């Protein structure tokens, strides 16, 4: 997913799915260098892609009942 996220893509999502909750400048500011605890948008989405593709079996989200059988 690296290097495919553009300000235009994010601005369109912000405008069309989130009723323009943030300004175009706010959204454009996400693309580029890191800030605060965010290294870069591309790297976060790349890492998140790996996390989302991990097969965790029957593990349930934290706080919800487990569905696995005892080993």
């Amino acid at each position, binding site marked *: 997913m690296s290097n495919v996220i553009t300000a235009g893509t994010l601005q369109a999502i912000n405008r069309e799915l989130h009723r323009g909750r943030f300004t175009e400048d706010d959204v454009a500011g996400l693309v580029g260098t890191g800030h*605060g605890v965010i290294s870069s948008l591309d790297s976060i989405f790349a890492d998140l892609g790996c996390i989302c593709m991990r097969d965790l079996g029957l593990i349930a989200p*934290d706080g919800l009942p487990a569905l696995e059988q005892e080993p």
Partner: protein
Amino acid sequence: MIGQVRPSVKATAAALSRGEITATSLLDASVGVIEQTNSALKSFISLSIGRARRQAAEADRRLAAGAGLGPLDGLPFAVKDVYETADLYTTAGSRAFANRQAIRDATAIAQLEAAGAILVGKTNLHEFAYGATGENGWSGTVPHPQDLTRLAGGSSSGSAAAVATGAVYAALGTDTGGSVRVPAALCGIVGYKPTFGTMSLEGTVPFCWSLDHGGILTRTVEDLAPFASCLAGIERGSIETLPQPLRIGIAEGWADDAEPDVARAFENALGALETLGARLAPVRLPDRSEARTVSLVLQLSEALAFHAPHLERAGDLYGEDVRSGLVLAQFLPASAYVQCKRFVTDYRRTLAETFKAFDIILTPACPIVAPLIGTKEVRLSGQTLPLGNALTLFTSLFNLTGSPALAMPAGVSSQGLPLSIQLIGPARGDASVIAVAGALERHGLGQKPEATPTRSAARERS
């Protein structure tokens, strides 16, 4: 160092019960330190002097009658300005919450006041606790009490500075990725977050419900014990005894990612533990980089859920870094949030399994010493990290696992800045964490000068 060295909680409580000093004189000393330091440090956002004076007078009446409430009776404390109070605004360090008034005090404040402790004020923080540097464009950035060109760290920056300067005996913070332990580490004090859910956060402004922990900052581990007992239900007797045998897991490779002075302090701590009879063995922990992304997704998603209506009302009053995080949050899919919550389950199971073989895991608390104000990035082990990531490199995993964790002083760097280690225990293994930290402190690790109550600024009872 700005401020004063306070006597210990134990010595102060003894002096109070013997009538050598009064709660009112302790409060006067606190106010004196705050007046002396706050223009430079910006540790406090608001003060509660009238209420504190009434409580100090009541404590003095109790103590004079021999009816003191225990070791915390008459001791001044502070809270991070996310803990709600009925008589002061709870700003969360944000212009957007500048006039936010709660109708009652947070439970943790009520618990301390029931034990006789006296709230003197509310401390500064990184806006909405979103960030580890403590930089804040509205309420001011808290500099390091020892070197005003450096950062105190955050997000509980004011709480750390208030304790380090001796303004209070303890300050409450919150810790979502290291926000109690990081400023404690940078300022050379103790920062403790109990097992997830054991210290009440009722009546606090949330950042991320899944990861927010209450936390306590004190000058020493010895001082921490009565506050931990009051707020996290730790039995006082249980922290006197070390696990036998004492099995310490050394986080494999973590110290290699720290600055050389930090790594040296960590090695010294290992030596001290061996002297105490501990068995040391390496332990492999979950991947920190992956855990950081998991943590970030949970933090930002939950923060946006809380802040969405406030953004609608006052979005232009938010600081730039918080706002940018919330902007990012709206692009994170719900499935990613759920998957990250599944990772939390996995991490908790992994740690529970690990703790079958260990009583405590030891890591450095922070890979760097207090950075200069204005630092944006840090280079560690050949990687360039945003400062916030670097500061929380060794802490954020243990918010995901909900483990009790404590940062404590472990010496000073070649520049004379504090160094720190972190002790982590199994869920509800808080007593062991405090017991081992206490043993290290008594062994001399990170030793500090001690003051006596009569040498402090406190005036004797007239």
